[in-house]
């Protein structure tokens, strides 16, 4: 399976070719192929059990792929043990050495890789400064806060100037505020050093915030590889549409297709949308996906202006989330389906209560139609 790549070979840091991993009779990863240009920040996004961590462990060298080959800087690495690969990794539970100080942890890879002993203290200090931990070198690991431990782990993974930085969900255990702070910190350090980075996460927000590119995985298969904006705005299939963002699916049959525009007949109505797959044709069972924030909501149809699709419904639930209100609206015209709608203007906007009659509207280009 050849993957089209516009990049010249010497600018590719990691190339994964038809890689598969089988545990017993479970296919953890199937036919994974992608290229990652040098200096880019890639996030592999997927639910637990999607094979994303297995793929990362194969790149790190902890597991050997059962099929396919991984190239790092154009060299096949299947026969290279982890300690001979120039890969820095930040582990899920950080895996800092508890019997060493912060500085000793950061110095560890330099000692193991036999760097010039006289240069080690200076280098350790420089990287501790890079992660804003200057002066903390003498602290024991258990004397540092969670965020500080994260920073030590990053410094340790970067200090030997690896070809590649791997992040195995290191932020998963942090509370939300610290997590968002650390996401930006990863982004800053990655940009500052220009190190090629592969991050694994199940947090779609993190994937969108930090990455140059996103790979969405499910069931061991790569579902889509795209820039974050592209993955969000133009999901390649129903799984991606459902996994990133909050999406309403309206099931129906393709009535007509003309170029990219399709009309979907559902529950006796015809809804205009855009086809995603080339192969989608009239008569196919399909699902139209509309994001919760792309639906407008008003007391009357007139207030929705010239939106192409309008449906009427009754508010079933209104959930106040601070910066937005999430409405669940029951739409009899769509078979009594519950449609989720984000309202981002809770101050000036009318607030609806359960039982209120409302009108919903969206544009045809915002309904992506997938094959069922």
């Amino acid at each position, binding site marked *: 399976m050849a993957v089209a790549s516009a990049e010249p070979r010497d600018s590719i840091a990691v190339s994964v070719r038809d890689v598969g991993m089988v545990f017993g009779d479970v296919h953890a990863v199937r036919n994974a192929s992608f290229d990652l240009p040098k200096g880019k920040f890639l996030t592999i996004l997927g639910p637990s059990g999607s094979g994303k961590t297995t793929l990362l462990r194969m790149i*790190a*060298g*902890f597991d050997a792929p059962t099929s396919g080959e991984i190239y790092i800087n154009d060299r096949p690495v299947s026969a290279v*043990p*982890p*300690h001979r*690969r120039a*890969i*820095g*990794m930040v*582990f*899920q*539970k950080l*895996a*800092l*050495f*508890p*019997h060493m100080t912060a500085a000793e942890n950061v110095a*560890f*890879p330099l000692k*193991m*890789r036999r760097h010039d002993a006289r240069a080690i203290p200076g280098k350790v200090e420089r990287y501790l400064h890079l992660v804003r931990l200057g002066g903390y070198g003498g602290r024991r690991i*258990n004397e540092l806060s969670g965020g500080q431990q994260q920073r030590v782990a990053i410094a*340790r*993974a970067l200090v*030997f100037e690896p070809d590649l930085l791997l992040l195995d969900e290191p932020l998963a255990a942090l509370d939300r505020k610290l997590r968002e702070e650390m996401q930006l910190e990863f982004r800053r350090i990655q940009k500052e050093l220009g190190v090629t980075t592969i991050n694994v996460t199940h947090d779609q927000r993190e994937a969108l915030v930090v990455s140059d590119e996103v790979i969405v995985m499910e069931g061991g298969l790569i579902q889509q590889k795209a820039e974050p904006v592209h993955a969000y705005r133009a999901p390649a299939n129903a799984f991606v549409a459902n996994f990133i963002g909050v999406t309403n699916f309206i099931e129906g049959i393709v009535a007509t297709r003309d170029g990219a525009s399709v009309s979907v007949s559902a529950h006796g109505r015809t809804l205009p949308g855009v086809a995603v797959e080339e192969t989608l044709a009239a008569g196919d069972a399909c699902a139209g996906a509309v994001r919760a924030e792309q639906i407008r909501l008003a007391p009357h149809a007139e207030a929705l202006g010239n939106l192409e699709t309008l449906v009427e419904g009754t508010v079933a639930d209104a959930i106040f989330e601070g910066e937005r209100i999430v409405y669940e609206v029951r739409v009899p015209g769509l078979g009594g389906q519950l449609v989720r709608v984000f309202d981002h203007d809770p101050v000036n906007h009318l607030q609806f209560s359960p039982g209120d009659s409302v009108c919903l509207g969206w544009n045809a280009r915002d309904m992506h139609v997938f094959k069922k």
Partner: protein
Amino acid sequence: MRKSRVAYPLTWRVMDGLEGLAARLWPARFEKGLPYLMLAPAVLLVGILVLGLVQIGDSSLRVLDTSTFLMSEDLTLANYHRALTESFFATVAGRSLLGSVIVTIVTLIFAFPYAYLMVRTPSSALRKLLLVALFLPFFIGQVVRAYGWLIILGNQGMVNEALGLVGVAPMRLLYNYPAVLFGLVQYMLPFAVLMLAPALTAIPAELESAASSLGANWLRTFRHVVLPLARPGLVGAGLVVVTLSLTDFAIPAILGGGTQDFIANAIYDQFFRTSDQGMGATLSLMLVAVGSLLVGLVFMLFGAGTLAMTGERK
């Protein structure tokens, strides 16, 4: 009435009755005393032991009158003088001390990979097999096991017969120092593995992955990560093995055949062969002193290892 009986079953009534009885016997205001009450049996047992030590201390200061076979009335340090000057006792003490140190080192070297494999193997079948193999010797008992070695290592034993098949003349494998050390190592191995396993379990496998991704091969991972973190387990296991083998009786008696006596055998001889209670008591006390000194020294140098349950370790 019937309805209420269903709602309030008989077992609950019984429990209520018992709780009421307990409350009458031990009112709530005594509650603070309860932990001390539960401590009482242990304190009592240790207390009796201390009384015994005092008694032994008294005996150790009396010499045996060989004409009357009675202990002397007046107190003297003659027994201690004999124990420290007579070369026989020095030989036994040296043999025991050196033996227990060798046994400890060899046992730890053997036990470490066993415990490591048991903790780290992904196969639960292998883990169970290793555990069963570990506990099996406990069911057999020390004397029977030592006797088993007599059968296997004897002049007409399995080992010599096997050697005979390849043309090697029968060798004397028993009643020498190596045989005793061999038996002790075999006896101590399960204790050491059981003391080491929890310490190794406490080392996350991720640390070893991290070390290898940071450039350490398995040897350097072991040296810089696993070994330092396993130290509490090694100290704990070492203390148990060194004290048990220093004071062991059955293995030197059976596999040494009387030629390889350890301190405990010498004490036995004094009490039950020559009936010199004074000398036996002296040797006992000196064994306690040497053992305590050894343990104290290890505590000072390396900490108490897994034997100290400070909860400091994670």
